[in-house]
């Protein structure tokens, strides 16, 4: 009996998020605005724009970790610098060698 209760709770938590996703899908609304997911654009491996992030966890010239609503985005590279940083957008410049999504 205890197990069923836990299962129900889990299902209830997941359901509202899935409903939101479905609605934005059907209505074709911009997802990064509605769902708060980060939007990442890259220019080769030299430049990366990340919109909608929550904060910087780690910043080094060879490693950057960014915390987003989706999880942690880990970048490895050489000579990494932050070209600009505002509340919503962050621009990373340098030679990016590896991207990891730690969800």
């Amino acid at each position, binding site marked *: 009996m205890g197990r069923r209760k836990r299962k129900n709770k889990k299902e209830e938590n997941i359901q509202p998020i899935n409903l939101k996703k479905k609605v934005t899908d059907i209505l074709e609304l911009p997802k990064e605005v509605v769902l708060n997911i980060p939007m990442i654009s890259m220019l080769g491996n030299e430049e990366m724009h990340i919109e909608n992030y929550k*904060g910087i966890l780690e910043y080094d*010239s060879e490693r950057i970790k960014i915390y987003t609503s989706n999880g942690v985005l880990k970048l490895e590279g050489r000579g990494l610098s932050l070209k600009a940083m505002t*509340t919503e957008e962050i621009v990373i410049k340098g030679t990016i060698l590896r991207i990891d999504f730690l969800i």
Partner: protein
Amino acid sequence: MFLSVWNYLRGYVTIEVSGFSVERFMNLASHKGIYLWDIQRNRAKVQMKVSIAGFRLLKSCAKKTRCKVRIIEKKGWPFILYRYRKRKVMGLGFLIFFGILYILSSFVWVVEIKGNTRISTEELTKALGEYGVKPGVWKYKINPSNIEGLLMNDFNDIAWTAVDIKGTKVTVELTETVVKPEIVDQTTPCDLVAEKTGLIVSIATRAGTPKVKPKDVVQKGDLLVSGELIVKQDEEGTVIKYVHADAEVKAKTRYEITYDQPLSYIEKQYTGEVKKQYGINILDKKLNLFKPRISFQNYDKIISSRQLSVTKHFVLPIEGIIYEYREFIPVTHKRTLEEAKKLAEEEIKKRLIAQMDEESEIISHDIQFYPYEEFLRAKAVAIVIERIDKPQVIDRRKIINGTKGKNTADTN
């Protein structure tokens, strides 16, 4: 590029942040709305650029995250202003400079007139001066269309004019009317009289009654072709019709031209010695600087001037003048008789042709040379065949009397 210009105008600081959690510091700063850029890591320290306004808010962030903030560089317009905050008069000087520049460029300094061939430039300049267009007037007082109208009114010869004010130059462009050829009214009855004395060679009458025939000698003013046409002459009386006489009367006329050709001429041999003098011409007032002592006995004075202008349109009323004095030695050369004769002949021919018109022919010319003091005198006599008819209007009273009250001035 524009972002950096914008940032420079607002002023920014390059800072170095060192401490334990620089990332927390940056997060806090960006959450407060401070814009950071050019972030680089220097081993344990992070260097970044931040606006002046943002820098003030950073202090509290640094406290919270226990980071040390150090200013490396200050760049921007506000810093420069701060540096010169005591030099207020210099700022005033800047303003005065721009003010004077603007005011001076609001005057007219040059008036340029283009396109006039028959009307003299001085006349136009004087007329424009009366309308109020001359150097030194306030540019905005001049109304171009007004001036155009005034010009067209006062000068009959102007067909089109355009007045344009660009910078400090007023350009007046005009096109003159095409001169109407003098057409003698074909309806006015007139006679043809002789313009010159001569021997008639040919006469071709188109209208009127010829009074002379070839081989007649006529004097200047003699009647050649009469405009009276006798229509009927019988017992009842004579009926005369008055027409505009038209004929081509050619006669041999004589031209006499005398010309003295100098036998010696002076050649300028430049020694190469040049002395320069400079002068400035401001608003028609001449200012000469640095006049060297000219020890030359004979020299050529060459004046070259250049008008200063900022661009092609902003012409200033300042002219730079360079006076060059070139020394030369006059060397007298004697011309040979042959040379002199040739030159004299050419000159006489030129003068003769200038006096004649296109239809005339030179039949013969004879040049006599004889020496006269230091010159070679050439006397030329030329016989020319040319038209000598000239219309002369018949007196109105004659017409009315002749027709006994009936006005039969007729056209053909």
